[in-house]
């Protein structure tokens, strides 16, 4: 069984602030969908609506065309991590996982196995309040995996993880998606998105501003280099944005198109390749340069 997650025409207002406006997108199974946007763009609110924690004013969240609230065993369908601090600080890691496992009808061995999977076995006796943020993230991920779900919804799961932890998380999510699972993560780690995500949904000021595949984004960006100084002029005159970068140019045009233009003007190229590190630029553009940590180029 596979799970498709979707938001349809979701509107949400807090007081006078419109937090979400007509938010719609779908996360297909077998894919990692990255949900990106500046701070305060509405990512967490959208995820809370998707998981039934917050009510939408209009529109709704669907899991295989049904509301998660009407699903008999939600934890077996969707594993959720919304906030790594949302655990009682006075319980130990083991107690926390075993109690939740009991709630959803899983044996305590499943709780112990999840603790081992995320590398928390050695601190299973520690109280949650004594854990570092990275450990709490791991606990949250273990908690999300307890019910052997078909989909994962994770809000900023890599926050607080060390570099090894981030690599571990990337691999875990990739394996989950490759097994047919659906993954939706909100994140600020663009590098991680570029490494692992298949799809990108960008939100800005409560509106979806991009819903595309990572391959499509990459396909429209090129890194090019030439000793001929006319190259930049030709590209700019053709109406494209050209950004100098370490002796090369980054162009918002596909590599074949750049090659064609260069050939037409008889410009020899020394380098021509799709731009693999273009997501930050793309996000900055679609969010009007609001995206945190991204400087306009």
């Amino acid at each position, binding site marked *: 069984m596979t799970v498709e997650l979707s938001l349809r025409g979701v509107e949400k207002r807090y007081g006078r602030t419109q937090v979400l406006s007509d938010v719609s997108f779908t996360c297909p199974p077998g894919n990692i969908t990255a949900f990106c946007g500046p701070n305060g763009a509405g990512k967490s609110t959208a995820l809370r609506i998707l998981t*039934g924690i917050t009510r939408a004013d209009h529109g709704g969240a669907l899991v295989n065309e049904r509301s998660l*609230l009407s699903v008999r*065993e*939600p934890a077996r369908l969707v594993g959720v991590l919304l906030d790594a601090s949302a*655990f*009682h600080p*006075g319980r130990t890691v083991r107690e926390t996982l075993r109690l939740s496992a*009991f*709630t*959803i009808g899983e044996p305590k061995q499943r709780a112990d196995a999840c603790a081992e999977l995320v590398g928390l076995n050695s601190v299973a006796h520690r109280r949650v309040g004594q854990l570092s943020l990275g450990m709490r993230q791991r606990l949250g991920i273990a908690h999300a995996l307890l019910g052997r779900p078909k989909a994962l919804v994770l809000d900023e799961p890599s926050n607080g993880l060390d570099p090894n932890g981030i690599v571990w998380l990337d691999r875990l999510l990739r394996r989950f998606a490759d097994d047919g699972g659906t993954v939706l993560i909100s994140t600020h780690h663009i590098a991680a998105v570029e490494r692992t995500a298949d799809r990108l949904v960008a939100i800005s000021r409560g509106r979806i501003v991009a819903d595309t595949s990572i391959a499509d984004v990459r396909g429209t960006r090129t890194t090019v280099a030439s000793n001929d100084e006319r190259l930049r002029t030709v590209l700019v005159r053709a109406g494209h944005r050209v950004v100098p970068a370490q002796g090369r140019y980054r162009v918002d045009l596909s590599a074949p198109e750049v090659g064609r233009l260069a050939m037409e003007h008889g410009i020899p190229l020394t380098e021509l390749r799709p731009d693999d590190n273009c997501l930050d630029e793309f996000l900055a553009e679609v969010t009007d340069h609001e995206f945190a940590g991204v400087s306009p180029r």
Partner: protein
Amino acid sequence: MTPLTRQTITELRRAVDTRGPQWAFGIAIAGGLVLSLVVPGGTSGTFDHFVSGVSIGLPFLAGLLAVMAFTADWTTRAALTTFVLTTSRPRVLVARYLAVLCLTVGSLIAIHLIGALVFVMLRPDSASSVFTAETVRQFGAMAATTVASALTAMAVGGLVLRTAPAIVVAVFAPLLLTIGLAFAPTVLEWANPYGFAGWLASPNWNWTVPQEESVGLGPALTSFTIWTAVPVVLGWFRQMRAEPR
């Protein structure tokens, strides 16, 4: 959907598996025992006399446990996790009510059993006074008072959703109000926070009765409405709508 029985057991475990409730339980029992042992004549009478001292803190304990059961999730932000696992909030809330009632009755029985054990150890010659008509009557009265106290605390906890203010409102405010209203006996009769508990402990079916005798049905129902029913209803809606932060 998580079966109600399993959800109730979950809530019961949540209510007792952290340090706060465990300390409250330990202090209530130890305090009651110490009080009974140090008060002159505390151990020289019959068991019902002894156990009334041991269980003196029980209504407060029940109130504390009920408040913590209803507010810990919100105070520690664990409500987010709770409602992600069980998306049906009514089910969680019903289970929580049932769990607190079980916990209250369980605490009552535990304290009486511990009291009986200590009493028999101290006064083996009076062991026959442990199970008498008077101890059964007293147990029933204490059960009524404790359950009423837990109901009020659950209602306030569910309405306030924060542990410290809920303890103040549910446990200390009624005490202060009762003392404060001593100069207005008519108001106190009808708005007495302990009116319903008093009536449950010794039911009187007359609408009003002289205050020094007992509590009438009218004041008991008014007390129940003000201190339990209204907060329960408002708290239910609040918990249904509140967003875990």
